[in-house]
C-alpha cells in the first residue's frame, strides 16, 4: 500500500468527511442525554438559590455571531431557569456586535413563556421580570460603574426606555441586588467581572464560554471566584437538561440538538488522527 499517498491525502476529502459528519446528524436529529458536570451543576445551584424578591440574575454577554451557536443557547437556558423561578433578569451586552442577538433571545423566551401563560401574573412582562440594558462602551466602564448604580451607567435601556422608570429597577440599584452575574463569552468577560466587580463589590460571578475558552476559567472555578460554568456547547446542553429535568419548561433546546453533530465531528477528527498516525508509522517502516 502507498502510505505516503495516504499521508498526503487531498484535504478536500477531509473537508467532505467532516461536512458529511456534521450534516447527516442534523438531517436526522436525535437527543442524547448529556449528564451535567460539576461546574454546570454548581452554576445551576447558585442561580436556583437566588431569592427573586431580593435579588436578580444578570446575564452579561460579549458573544458575537461567530460564537452564537455555542453561547446563545446558554442565555436562553438561563432565562428559562430564572423566569420559571420568578427571578428578575437583567441583561447587558459588552460588545455591540452581540447586542441584537441577545434582544432576539429575550423576545423568543418571553414568547415561549407568554404563549403558555394564563394570567398576567404568569406572564413575563418587560420591565417587571426582565430588563435589557443594552450596550455601553468600553466594557470596563459598565462593569465597574454598576457597582454604584446600574441605572446611572445605563440611563436608557436597549429599547430607549428610561431605566429608572422600569418597575424592577425600583428595587435593583447595584450589585448588592444582583445574585450572580453570568458572563457569557467567547473572550474573557468572566475574568473582567472577577477582577473588577467581584474584588471591589463582592458580586458572585458565573461563566458561560466557548469550549476553547473553558481551560482559562477552570482555575477560577477551583478557587470559587467563579461560582459555576457552562463550558462550550456541551455545557449549554447540560444546563438545558438540568432546567428541563427540574422544571419541564419545554422550548427548543438548540445545544442539545447540536450534540449529535458535535459528537460526529469529534469522531471524524479522531478517526483522521488515528488514520494519519497509522499511515505515518507504516510509511516509516516501509522506508
Amino acid at each position, binding site marked *: 500500500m502507498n502510505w505516503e499517498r495516504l499521508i498526503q491525502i487531498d484535504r478536500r476529502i477531509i473537508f467532505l468527511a467532516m461536512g458529511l459528519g456534521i450534516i447527516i446528524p442534523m438531517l436526522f436529529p436525535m437527543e442524547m442525554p448529556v449528564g451535567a458536570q460539576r461546574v454546570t451543576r454548581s452554576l445551576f445551584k447558585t442561580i436556583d438559590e437566588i431569592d427573586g424578591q431580593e435579588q436578580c440574575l444578570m446575564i452579561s454577554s460579549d458573544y458575537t455571531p461567530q460564537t452564537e451557536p455555542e453561547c446563545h443557547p446558554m442565555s436562553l437556558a438561563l432565562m428559562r431557569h430564572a423566569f420559571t423561578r420568578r427571578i428578575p433578569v437583567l441583561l447587558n451586552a459588552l460588545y455591540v456586535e452581540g447586542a441584537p442577538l441577545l434582544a432576539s433571545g429575550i423576545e423568543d423566551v418571553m414568547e415561549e413563556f407568554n404563549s403558555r401563560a394564563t394570567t398576567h401574573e404568569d406572564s413575563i412582562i418587560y420591565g417587571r421580570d426582565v430588563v435589557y440594558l443594552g450596550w455601553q462602551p468600553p466594557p470596563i466602564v459598565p462593569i465597574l460603574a454598576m457597582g454604584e448604580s446600574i441605572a446611572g451607567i445605563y440611563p436608557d435601556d436597549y429599547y430607549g426606555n428610561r431605566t429608572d422608570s422600569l418597575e424592577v429597577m425600583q428595587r435593583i440599584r447595584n450589585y448588592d441586588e444582583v445574585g450572580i452575574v453570568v458572563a457569557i463569552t467567547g473572550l474573557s468577560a468572566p475574568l473582567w467581572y472577577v477582577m473588577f466587580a467581584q474584588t471591589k463589590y463582592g458580586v458572585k460571578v458565573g461563566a458561560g464560554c466557548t469550549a476553547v475558552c473553558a481551560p482559562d476559567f477552570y482555575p477560577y472555578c477551583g478557587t470559587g471566584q467563579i461560582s459555576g460554568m457552562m463550558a462550550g456547547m456541551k455545557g449549554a446542553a447540560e444546563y438545558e437538561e438540568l432546567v428541563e429535568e427540574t422544571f419541564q419548561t419545554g422550548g427548543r433546546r438548540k445545544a442539545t440538538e447540536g450534540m449529535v453533530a458535535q*459528537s460526529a465531528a469529534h469522531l471524524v477528527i*479522531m478517526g483522521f*488522527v488515528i488514520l494519519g498516525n497509522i499511515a505515518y508509522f507504516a510509511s516509516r517502516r516501509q522506508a
Partner: protein
Amino acid sequence: MRDKLPLALLIILGLFGLTDRFLPHPIAEGFNQYLRDTLLRIISAFALILGLGNLILRHTKKIQKKEEHWQHSWVLLLSFLVASIIGVFGGVNGELWFPTQVGSFHFDITTIYNKVLIPLGATMFSLLAFFMASAAYRAFRARNWLAVLLLGSAFLVMLGQVPLGARIWSGIPEISQWIMEVPNTAAKRGIELGITLGILATLLKILAGIERSWLGSGR
C-alpha cells in the same frame, strides 16, 4: 514637551487609578468615578475614530500601491462606506430619512446585521472545524511519549466534551473533567502568574517613565 506632557498625564492618572484600590476617600473615589465614567468613554470614542481612520488610510494606500490582494481592500472600503451611510442616515431600522427599502426589499442596518453579518460570522467560524480536522490529520503524530500523552489527553477531553464519551464508558467524562480541573489548572495558574508578574513589572516601568515605547517608535 512632546514627550513630557503625555508622560506626566500618564503618571498622574495612572497613580489616581491605583489609589482607587487603596484609598477609600470620597474625593479620590469621586475623581476616579469621573475618570472612569466620563473621561474613559471620551477617550474610547477618540480611539474608535483613530482606529477607523487608520483602517481607511491603510487600505487606501494598499489600493494606491497595488499591494498583494489590493482588490480585497476595495471590498472593505465599499462595505464600510455603504454600511456607514445606511447606518448614520437610515437609522437602525430604517426610521431616518435615508430610504432603506425598495419594494419588499429591505437593506436597513438590522437587516444587514441579520442577513449578512450573522451568516458571514458563522461561516468564518465554522470553517475552523474543517481546517482543524485537516491540520490535526497532518500534524498530530505520536512521535514520542510526550506526544502520546498529549494525544491521549486530547482524545479523552474530546470524548468527554460530547455525550458519546459517556456512552462508550461512563468514566470518560470524569477523566476529562479531572484533566481540566487538575493538570490544566496547574499549568494555567503557572502561566497566569507569570503573565501577571510581567504585567506588573511593565506597569511599574511605564509609571516610573522607564518604559517609553508607547510614546512612539524610536523612543
